């Protein structure tokens, strides 16, 4: 009896999740009347704006990941090693982006960093890119910090640090050659999650007026019929790829550890 209910709950749920995926795929193939074709995808890939905005968002994602790793790994390490009393405060701050909606944060940026402010970041295109990267780093902070902190929990930070120090290593060496390799899986998980968040992000990019992939998709959606579902299929594939890579690195590391 329980089993019947269990199957029913699961199958109904799966149906709900499958239909939109089938729907968008089918719709994206219908551009040519009467037959299924990849015309919509060809149209999307032929559009230079697609490549321009996509590579822009990819670049920003890369910048966000590099910045996020440089910020989060030393901080999480330092808090574990020297400042356990600061832990609740730091953790609280890293959770704040889940509390404050992205649209409110970017609203604050626009008003705080306008051309007549102490740090006129929105005055130039590059400055706005920096600001947007910082915004993405803020959005990714909860996930990045949690991933790295969980990674640090599995290693003995204090002993590793003392061992490295007694062999004459400085802080830079400890971080880059001892800590980072040990939490690499966690860092990679955080990085792919960041990529998944940043690549299609709409609100911040649109309000800061930057030519990112999210606003491009929205604009296309308002004006075309068949390209948007094709974009949705592409975006879904990217999200899958990011999550798949996270699983892959996690599984790979378990395998490595099992061998050792």
């Amino acid at each position, binding site marked *: 009896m*329980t089993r019947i*209910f*269990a*199957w029913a*709950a*699961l199958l109904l749920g799966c149906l*709900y*999740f499958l*239909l*939109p*995926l089938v*729907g*968008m795929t*089918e*719709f*994206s193939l219908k551009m040519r009347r009467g037959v299924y074709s990849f015309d919509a995808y060809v149209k999307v890939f032929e559009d230079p704006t697609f490549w321009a905005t996509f590579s822009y968002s990819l670049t920003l994602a890369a910048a966000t990941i590099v910045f996020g790793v440089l*910020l*989060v790994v*030393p*901080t999480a390490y*330092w808090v*574990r*090693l*020297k*400042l*356990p*009393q600061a*832990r609740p405060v730091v953790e609280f701050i890293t959770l704040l*982006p*889940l*509390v*404050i*909606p*992205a*649209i*409110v*944060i970017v*609203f*604050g*940026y626009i*008003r705080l960093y306008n051309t007549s402010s102490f*740090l006129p970041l929105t005055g130039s295109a590059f400055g706005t890119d920096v600001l947007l990267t910082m915004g993405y780093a*803020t959005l990714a902070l909860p996930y990045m910090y949690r991933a790295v902190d969980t990674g640090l*929990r599995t290693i003995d930070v*204090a002993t590793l640090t003392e061992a490295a120090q007694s062999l004459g290593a400085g802080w830079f060496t400890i971080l880059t050659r001892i800590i980072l390799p040990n939490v690499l899986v966690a860092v990679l998980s955080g990085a792919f999650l960041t990529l998944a*968040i940043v690549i*299609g992000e*709409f*609100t911040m990019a*649109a*309000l800061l007026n930057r030519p990112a992939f999210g606003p491009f*998709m*929205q604009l296309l*959606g308002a004006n075309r*019929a068949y390209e948007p*579902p094709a974009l*949705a299929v592409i*975006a*879904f594939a990217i*999200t899958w790829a990011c999550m798949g890579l996270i699983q892959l690195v996690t599984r790979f590391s378990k395998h490595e550890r099992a061998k050792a």
Partner: protein
Amino acid sequence: MTDIPPRHRPKLRLPIAWLGILPFALFALLFLILPTMKIVVGAFQSPAGGFTLQNLIDLNTDSIRSAYWTSIKLSLITALLGCAVGFAMAAAVVFGGLPKRIRGPLLTFSGVASNFAGVPLAFAFIATLGPAGLVTLWLKTEFGINLRAMGFNLLSFWGLVVTYLFFQIPLMILIIIPALDGLKREWREAAAVLGATGAQYWRMVALPILFPSLLGTFALLFANSFGAVATAFALTGPQLNIVPIKLFAQIRGDVLGNPNLGYALAFGMIVITGLANVTYIVLRTRSERWLK
């Protein structure tokens, strides 16, 4: 706790240790705390710069009140349905006697779906339930059911509910499966030995233990949908009267005709998601005590 025990060293060196988190503190201050403070302070400022409560009072117009009400209703309903359906699916997988192989793919898929929000999600639903969508056409040609004539419109409140559930349910599944795993077998056996029925076990043992994490997840889902802009904007454009969309239009073009009213609108959002998340954090810490 697995924290490193505090070391014995002279008190004088303490400030140097704090320097280590200076970059993080600076980042948080510049890109998280100051921007938020700017909004909060602005909400209590008159255009001339003095302190005033007028902005918050001015929020009390029909259009803004109904925007908040729609947003709160939307978030409550999607959080409630997300919790219910997510719980049912998670419970089915954990306790329903389904093959173990289902679990991994379900978790992976939930990870993907909870991140598949925003503009592409809106496209997927337009292609499925929109006027020319797959399901809409199929129901019309196969069964003669006209969704539109029955009052269903994807570009409306309920359309938004159906769409938001696509990322709400998976989030619930991701959070609640570990909590369900935390229910120890011994508790169930102990209850059975004492003569409890299955229903009694759920009502008197399992649910009270799960209650904090259920309510906590509910709060998280609430905030999650309350702050969402992209999906709604891509689905309905700037027309739908919900708070994030209104704020979006206000930031772009000062549609309210008063910049400080924009701050007040944003401040209201912080207050509501803040309350939801404070509930979440408090209840989360309470429930984690049981799951160790």
